[in-house]
């Protein structure tokens, strides 16, 4: 059973556009929601993360929006650039001691065309 559903699978936007990647979860025990960026042949890099006590977090051109009641969160990339072309993964982690794993979405391949 997939616990974090990510959409779309792929996304093409023009330079300067605002790609939006969405994730939905079912388990209300999740309390940490990171996003990772992965370039081909490289390991994923932690991009930005949010806890459910806030509805939005910005870091540079990257913004996470979080809707606790809908159990959804999304990544927005402002003024997207060709260098943002990568695969993006959302993830979630349960609260509490003894919880060590991240549950990942299946990824979104983003292409930003000049």
């Amino acid at each position, binding site marked *: 059973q997939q616990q974090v559903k990510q959409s779309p699978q792929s996304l093409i936007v023009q330079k300067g556009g605002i790609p939006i990647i969405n994730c939905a979860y079912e388990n209300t025990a999740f309390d940490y929601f990171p996003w990772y960026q992965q370039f081909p*042949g*490289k*390991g*994923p890099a*932690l991009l930005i993360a949010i806890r459910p006590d806030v509805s939005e977090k910005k870091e540079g051109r990257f913004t996470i929006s979080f809707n606790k009641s809908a159990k959804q969160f999304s990544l927005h990339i402002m003024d997207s650039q060709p260098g943002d072309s990568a695969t993006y993964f959302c993830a979630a982690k349960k609260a509490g001691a003894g919880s060590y794993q991240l549950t990942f979405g299946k990824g979104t391949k983003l292409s930003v065309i000049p």
Partner: protein
Amino acid sequence: SQTIHQWPATLVQPVGSPLSLECTVEGTSNPNLYWYRQAAGRGLQLLFYSVGIGQISSEVPQNLSASRPQDRQFILSSKKLLLSDSGFYLCAWAPGTTYEQYFGPGTRLTVT
């Protein structure tokens, strides 16, 4: 600052041969350590994690095993590789008391 290393970067092995992939972390102590596998164009599958020396939890039954002989060293092994073991193997670490998880550069394994 903390650094995570994986080697080798690439590996081509015949079916039935053994495997040993190594991961080490520098600049921290008592990290949580993880092994993931990523098939081509696919998501991340957690294989093993460890919260301390000699403590290994397996997430997926398979012909792979993991060991943690030292605090900052994590090893992924197999006695006999299968074609289906091909993939991109990623090691990750996390500070024991926080949520962030950081990935290494990965090992590309091709089983022929």
